[in-house]
């Protein structure tokens, strides 16, 4: 059931307006914070108000205007988009609170918070895009508005990282554009409202080229190896930005794009006939293992997290490319599961850096006594990644394995297990180091980071547990994922 | 080396050019498209329709008058361009090192003697353009040349008096302004810009308008040529 509703436009517009207000009045700390938080809360309210409807199968659409003759700038809220929007707008609140605390001593705060708001505006735009052109529009805008955040430090390394980031993502954007043009040329439409707009009649060769082009385009932001090079370098940015890049916006935009391509542009049925996704699945599996392996040898805390992100993102890609309902559920759900766990970890890394100035893992010995709540949250996230039941990550792994078996590709289960072991191998030593390797003379009294940093950390960790325990409760995000899967597979 | 290369390239370029012109309709034949299409109409109707016995004048000022309107704008552009390129902030620096003219008495005398006749000839060329070879441009050029000769002989200050400061900009703009004036008159009269009255009885008006344009072009052309020369002279 489709309902014309203004709210899909309202959500990105709200943050856009607030970004404008931040630029105008942001010289004063109060207004900067007021608009940032106000926008976050308002937007979450708007998104959440559509949630019940979406779970029951209502699709909210709003066609803003014809962008070019025939192709409109349109918004459309379906289950998949809603899922992404809920995750990103929930996380935005936490990230905003965290950023307010974290950025206190930094320069150019107006610019930072302005572009921060813009960034989330474009992310919601991506989630609610009605057609591939609108999606591309926001995807490309996201690149531009994150650039000032990446080079925020204005150091030579930051510029280098920014250059690398732009080079990768703009080339990716160019591929997306070409893919969009080619899609329009072959299918005659760009709408994402159906489970697949292409058909076998378009010719296998064209379809193959198109698939590779689009996946390569979105794959850059989704950091599929070998397109991942920008992500570890972009660590030069301040921590809230890393959190944003890794959990909320950028990488998820890429993964979300891949999901859209597989489910809405090609459609599961067509891809099964074409037999195109197998190499993608293998590439994803390769990325999962290789990135985990590289992560083992990183001593810089944020770099280790970065490689972990690369590895985790490919879960989504793998789930999507297996083309079974179970795997698809896992892929969609992992958008949230990975986001909450990874953002917790980045927040922890940032809090430790702000509090103690330590950025390398070997320096963290004994930190668990000084910052017990922070490290507790980290432990929760780590266990989630390892895939311990009751934590969010377990849900993904479970469904993904079921999906692999459903598809008859049991060796992917082995990949799951290997990945869980690798995750354990690079996260648990940190926990161990923090609690059990305290060098003599360690500060034993509690000295936590300030509340604006600590509260988001604890909230996110709680969410990780919540997502892991309530997967089957109706009305929770997981049921959205199921709704999306029902639509995609025509069930 | 460079020159030889250029020459070789140009000789190479000559081949297609020569091939193409050899395929053009034969030179001088009366059955060419150039002769049978538009120009046949002009030759047949020009004299009674357009107001001048000289068909070329008809074409320039009437049939294709708008081209000439543009053309007089081009010379005005040239004047504006020369002034915009050559005028300087303070005029004093330019005049310092100018060599003084020394012209022999004989030359000076003969030029003075001839000047009125040259001017008269120019006027003749201008106002007879519609029945004989000649016209505004030709006459204007002769007038302009006269101004140049007089400058060389009498010196600049003397010659500049030919073109007083007050009407100077008006005279320089005379040609386009006349054209626009006649064009607008035609617009009110016939409903077409640069339209000339078509009625048989009004042929004298046609001729008068042509004459007005010729004079405008002649005066404007002369003023511009003289001004350009003086500006360059001041900068020399």
């Amino acid at each position, binding site marked *: 059931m489709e309902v014309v509703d203004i709210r899909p436009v309202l959500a990105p517009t709200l943050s856009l307006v607030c970004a404008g207000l931040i630029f105008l009045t942001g010289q004063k700390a109060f207004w900067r914070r007021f608009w940032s938080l106000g926008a976050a809360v308002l937007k979450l309210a708007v998104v959440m108000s559509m949630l019940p409807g979406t779970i029951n199968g209502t699709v909210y659409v709003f066609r803003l205007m014809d962008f070019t003759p025939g192709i409109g700038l349109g918004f459309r809220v379906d289950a998949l988009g809603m899922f992404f929007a809920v995750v990103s707008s929930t996380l935005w609140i936490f990230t905003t609170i965290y950023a307010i605390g974290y950025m206190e001593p930094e320069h150019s705060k107006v610019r930072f918070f302005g572009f921060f708001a813009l960034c989330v505006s474009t992310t919601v735009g991506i989630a609610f895009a009605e057609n591939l052109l609108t999606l591309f529009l926001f995807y490309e805008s996201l690149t531009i508005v994150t650039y000032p955040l990446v080079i925020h430090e204005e150091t030579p390394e930051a510029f280098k990282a920014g250059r690398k980031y732009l080079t990768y993502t703009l080339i990716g954007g160019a591929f997306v554009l070409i893919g969009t043009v080619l899609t329009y040329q072959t299918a005659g439409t760009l709408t994402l409202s159906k489970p697949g707009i292409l058909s076998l009649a378009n010719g296998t060769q064209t379809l193959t080229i198109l698939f590779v082009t689009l996946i390569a385009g979105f794959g850059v932001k989704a950091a599929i190896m070998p397109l991942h090079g920008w992500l570890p370098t972009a660590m030069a940015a301040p921590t809230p930005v890393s959190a944003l890049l890794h959990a909320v916006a950028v990488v998820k935009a890429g993964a979300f794009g891949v999901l859209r391509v597989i489910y809405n542009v090609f459609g599961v049925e067509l891809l099964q006939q074409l037999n195109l996704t197998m190499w993608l699945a293998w590439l994803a599996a390769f990325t999962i293992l290789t990135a985990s392996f590289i992560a083992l040898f990183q001593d810089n805390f944020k770099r280790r997290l970065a490689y972990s992100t690369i590895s985790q993102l490919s879960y989504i890609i793998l789930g999507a490319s297996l083309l079974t309902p179970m795997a698809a559920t896992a892929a969609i759900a992992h958008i949230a599961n990975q986001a909450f766990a990874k953002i917790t970890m980045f927040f922890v890394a940032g809090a430790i850096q702000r509090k103690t100035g330590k950025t390398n893992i070997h320096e963290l010995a004994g930190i668990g006594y000084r910052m017990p709540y922070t490290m507790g949250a980290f432990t929760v996230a780590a266990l989630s990644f390892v895939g311990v039941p009751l934590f969010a990550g377990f849900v993904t792994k479970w469904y993904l394995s079921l999906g692999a078996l459903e598809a008859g590709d049991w060796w992917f289960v082995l990949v799951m297990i290997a990945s869980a072991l690798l995750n354990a191998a690079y996260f648990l030593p940190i926990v161990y180091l923090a609690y059990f390797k305290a060098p003599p003379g360690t500060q034993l009294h509690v000295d936590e980071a300030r509340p604006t940093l600590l509260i988001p950390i604890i909230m996110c960790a709680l969410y990780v547990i919540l997502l892991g325990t309530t997967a089957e409760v109706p009305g929770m995000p997981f049921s959205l994922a199921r709704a999306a899967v029902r639509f995609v597979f025509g069930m | 080396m460079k020159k030889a290369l*250029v020459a070789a390239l140009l000789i190479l370029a000559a081949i297609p050019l020569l091939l193409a012109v050899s395929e*053009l309709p034969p030179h001088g034949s009366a059955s060419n498209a*150039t002769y049978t299409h538009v120009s046949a109409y002009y030759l047949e109707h020009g004299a009674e329709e357009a107001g001048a016995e000289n068909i070329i004048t008809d074409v320039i000022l009437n049939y294709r008058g708008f081209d000439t309107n543009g053309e007089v704008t081009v*010379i005005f552009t040239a004047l504006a361009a020369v002034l915009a390129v050559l005028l300087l902030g303070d005029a004093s620096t330019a005049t310092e090192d100018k060599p003084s003219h020394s012209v022999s008495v004989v030359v000076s005398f003969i030029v003075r003697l001839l000047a009125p006749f040259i001017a008269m000839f120019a006027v003749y060329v201008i106002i007879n353009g519609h029945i004989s070879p000649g016209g505004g441009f030709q006459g204007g050029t002769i007038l302009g040349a006269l101004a140049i000769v007089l400058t060389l002989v009498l010196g600049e200050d003397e010659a500049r008096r030919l073109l007083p400061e007050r009407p100077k900009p008006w005279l320089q703009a005379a040609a386009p302004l006349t054209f626009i004036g006649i064009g607008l008159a035609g617009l009110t009269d016939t409903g077409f810009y640069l339209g000339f009255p078509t009625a048989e009885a009004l042929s004298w008006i046609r001729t008068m308008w042509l004459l007005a344009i010729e004079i405008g072009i002649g005066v404007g052309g002369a003023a511009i040529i003289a001004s350009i020369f003086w500006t360059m002279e001041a900068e020399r």
Partner: protein
Amino acid sequence: MIEALWVNLDYAASVVLFLIGLYAVIAKDNLIKKFMGLNIMETAIFAFIVALGVVDGGDAPIMGEGARAPFTNPIPQALILTGIVVAVSTTALALSLIIRIYRQCGTIEADELREME
């Protein structure tokens, strides 16, 4: 081809003149000589277009008493009158520029000017 070229000798001559002018524009270093090359090219094209209007045995297209057909084609002549004016205007501007360049740089040789840059 040679035969056709012989008939159209006027056109061929214009083409050759045009290329000679182009040679001067490209190969000469002196700015004034360059510009004279441009004037040669202009003349070549005027000659070409006027030649298009020639009719064997044609008379000046001036009507009135004593006029007898055939007349030459009036259009090319009219066009070229415009063309000449345009050429004169371009020449005036080019010479002004050369004057300025000479005053500022003391030379109008293209190679010397290039060294000064």
